[in-house]
């Protein structure tokens, strides 16, 4: 798997699995939620604490309810940034 979270600390004192393994185990179920465009390994605003960030095409109560706030010990942060498009010029 490409692009492991090298800069962020991956495992604290807990016995959490590697965050990249957690992402691989849950990305399909997250993207199966209508309105979810992606998920990636990032950090909290402290630029240090690893977290899973979920990209939303739109923000609705139903989508927020469908996504857990933590996955296998990692915080989940929602980002409402819209659809991801191939960037040719038309």
């Amino acid at each position, binding site marked *: 798997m490409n692009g492991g*979270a*090298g800069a962020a600390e991956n495992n604290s004192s807990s016995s959490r699995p590697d965050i990249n393994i957690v*992402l*691989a185990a849950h990305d399909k179920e997250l993207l199966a939620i209508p309105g979810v465009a992606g998920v990636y390994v990032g950090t909290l605003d402290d630029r240090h604490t690893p977290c899973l960030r979920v990209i939303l095409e739109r923000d609705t109560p139903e989508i927020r309810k469908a996504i857990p706030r933590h996955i296998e010990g990692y915080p989940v942060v929602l980002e409402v940034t819209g659809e991801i498009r*191939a*960037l*040719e010029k038309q």
Partner: protein
Amino acid sequence: MKLFLVRIACSITSVLASLTVCIAAPSDVLDENHPAVRSAIEAQNEITPGLMEQAEILGTAVGADAQGNPVLSVFVDRDSSAAGAAMARLPRAVRGIAVRAELVDQVRAMGYTWKQTPPISLGTSGGWTYDLANKYCCSGTLGALVWVGGVQHILSNNHVLEGDTVTGGNGRIAQTGDPIIQPGLVDDECASYNGQTVGTLVKKNSLNVSNTDCAIAKVTAGKVRTDGNILGIGIPSKTTAAAYLYQKVKKSGRTTGTTHGTITGLNATVKVTYTKECAGAIWYKTFTGQILIANPSSSFLSGGDSGSLMLEDVATYPRPVGLLFAGNTSQAFANPINSVLAFLGATMVGH
């Protein structure tokens, strides 16, 4: 002594041109702290909102006349049929600051859209010569140069060079041997004869058979710089680098030119929206392991920048990190470069 002479000059000026504001000597620095400049800025702030409601007005600025007196410049669209009327409506002065109308071209973002004299540098507008369908033409960026089988090839995205996969709106599907032109159709008024052939497509179908969005075109002899030079960046390293969180990166592309950014996400699984031809039917592909770059207000990457090579942000011989291909108004995405090179059986051209 100097100030005395200035005052005399101002008095004479006042008699001769009552609408001109008297200021200190032209040798004074006319920065934003200068009283006369500040007066002009206040006049600008007063009048600009109303002016900008007029379609013919492109902008305002504080300038200076030949005597060094601040003036309020108003930029009028020279191509507007109502330019003359707009200029006639302008006041002669605002708060005693003379108003000066200037006919100008529309202001555009400074990308790399022009037709280069061969051999061209990369990081420039380009695309498939037949990328016109459904009343639209499409283009992207010719991002970099790679070696494949000992032969130099232009590197870009699949959806830029071979994205037409249905006969649909133009009766064509991209084929090996098709011309790749610089600039792309979008910058040629959708007429391929305005561009120049710089390569021929070597179809790889990456979107259907891999986790990458990449494509290559065999270079046409003499048309592309053999050192792999990229506009605004220079010659890249032939060695690649892995992405890491908060890595500083840069790129050169057709629309936004040379821009700088920061990697804020790794290992992204993302669903990307594509079209089956220019302005054609929509389809989706999900990628894994992608690099995410912060893209506030599309300042790092925008439509037309697809195909740009992303490199580490260092001054000389920067190492390639990814191939940019998708995004939105907040985020940009790149394939890790080693995945691209592995799929193509390629190595980078560079130092």
